[in-house]
């Protein structure tokens, strides 16, 4: 299993604790970094203080993004990520309690890679964590670089 860092953007502390609990129980040991609002998410991804030390706060390979956040909404964070040359390929999974069709459409429009609705039962959250591991961490190939520095290998 890849050992990419997962960044979880979530203002609800109990949701963070629940995910930590479930990841531990299902044996998903990828480092989980958490930030509690949209502004922190941007600072983390941009490497601004207090997240400047990449050894402590490595760039994530996957972002779990709540939509209803203080300061900047999840949509704004997502739009911002897609505008950053160094981050535009970063896989972002929206992880929210909203199942509103408008929100789903808007999230995809803003460049979400997936849209997951937070389940309310622990068993469902466990199932979702396992599916997430199987698809996003085991099956799916993540990009080597998150930004534009990709150059096609020259032939000959």
């Amino acid at each position, binding site marked *: 299993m890849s050992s990419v860092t997962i960044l979880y953007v979530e203002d609800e502390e*109990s949701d963070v604790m*629940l995910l930590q609990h479930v990841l531990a129980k299902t044996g998903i040991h990828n480092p989980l970094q958490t930030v509690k609002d949209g502004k922190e998410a941007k600072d983390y991804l941009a490497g601004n203080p207090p997240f400047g030390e990449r050894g402590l706060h490595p760039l994530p390979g996957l972002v779990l993004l709540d939509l*209803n956040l203080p300061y900047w909404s999840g949509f704004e964070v997502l739009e911002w990520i897609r505008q950053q040359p160094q981050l535009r390929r970063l896989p972002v999974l929206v992880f929210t309690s909203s199942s509103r069709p408008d929100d789903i459409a808007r999230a995809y429009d803003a460049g979400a890679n997936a849209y997951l609705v*937070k389940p309310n*039962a622990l068993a469902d959250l466990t199932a979702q964590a396992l599916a997430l591991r199987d698809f996003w961490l085991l099956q799916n190939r993540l990009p080597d670089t998150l930004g534009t520095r990709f150059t096609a290998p020259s032939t000959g």
Partner: protein
Amino acid sequence: MKPAVIRVLLVEDSDSDALLLQESLGETRPGEFEFTHVECWEEAVRCLRQKQFEVLLLDLLLPDITGRDTFLRARAEAPHLPIVVLTGEANEALGLDAVRHGIQDYLIKGQAYGRQTARAIRYAIERKQVEIALTKAEEALRDSERQLRDWNSELERRVAERTASLEETISDLEDFSHSITHDLRAPLRAIRSFAQILGEECLDCGRPRAQDHINRITGAAARMDKLIQDVLQYSRLARSELRLSPVDVQELLRGIIESYPAFQPPQVEIQIEGPLPHMLGNEAALTQCFSNLLGNAIKFVALGTRPRVRVWAERMGNPKAENRNPKEGRSPKSEKGDKPLPAGAEPPPATNPEPPVTQHASRITHQVSPSSPPLTPRPSVRLWFADNGVGIPKDAQERIFKMFQRLDKSYDGTGVGLTVVRKAIEKMGGKVGLESEPGCGSRFWLELKAVDESRPSGNVEGPSG
């Protein structure tokens, strides 16, 4: 009765003609006419502006104006005054022309005698009065019409204004209910999940009472969550536009039963007495309705009874259905198993005896008229769901379609299921209802428009998925 004196303005440049006219009138009707005689148009205008007249006698050959212009000018100068023009014998066409232009009459000089002239004057006055009255009436009518148009546009403006404000309110309410439901669910998620984690951690603590309390917390939270979800689903349904297309209800029911083990043997027996005709509906909404109806049918049974549900279709009374009556024996479709059931008939006999449904079974119907009824009413199909459950007393049959209504709290549920069914069916332009008696099971039905089966359903805009 003494007639009032008629004041005549006579415009005539020939003194002899004027004199002749005045004398002949004076002889015929002494004292009835009072003349003012002028010889040219300029003078006539002066007189008209100074004095009141009942009639204008106008020669068309004046020193300062002649012909057509004469009566046109006169009419413009005195629009409310009756005018009789005087023409020469050779100029009768001009007289006719004058009448066509709103002049009341013409007299041909030398042919008109006293009595005739008097009559022409009186008629001219009468005609003008009628004309004025008519004009006034027309004006009043136009005013009324204008007023009506004004009121109408004012009304439309107000309706638009209120509609806009209502739409805004609805949209606010939707946002409100949406955020309420989501904000309510978030803490619930924490309560439920942490109680569950606590329960797991407490498994080996050897305190069964504590475990029971935790189970009650998770149970209550789960129920609350279900309630919120059901209400959310209902409000979504209530504000959505349901697009209708032909639905193969038999296939839909089969799919629902296949995907839910709770609808399958050996726990329950659900029997579809097909073939079921295609119905005009919304597949997603119908899926919800069928699931809810089947779920209810198997849930509300007496303890120890194995739920049994039968589903069949009944074509409702309409010319088409009558044509297909097997008695007529013409339709090739009228084979065994495809017999339409006349309204009110008993369903085909089942292999297992069913609880008897008596004639006295109370009925309740919810009807809604679609916003724009089709010109020729489409035949409709009633889909029956009969169960062997506990039945519903008559006085409760209206209530069960209302939100949060639960007859027996010993059965699990939120009391939203039938409310969703009714709302969905109404949004599809249909009806729902039931026949039931306690102890005799319930027969719920929903009625939707039938699909014209002369067209292959594949060609019609089909449901996706």
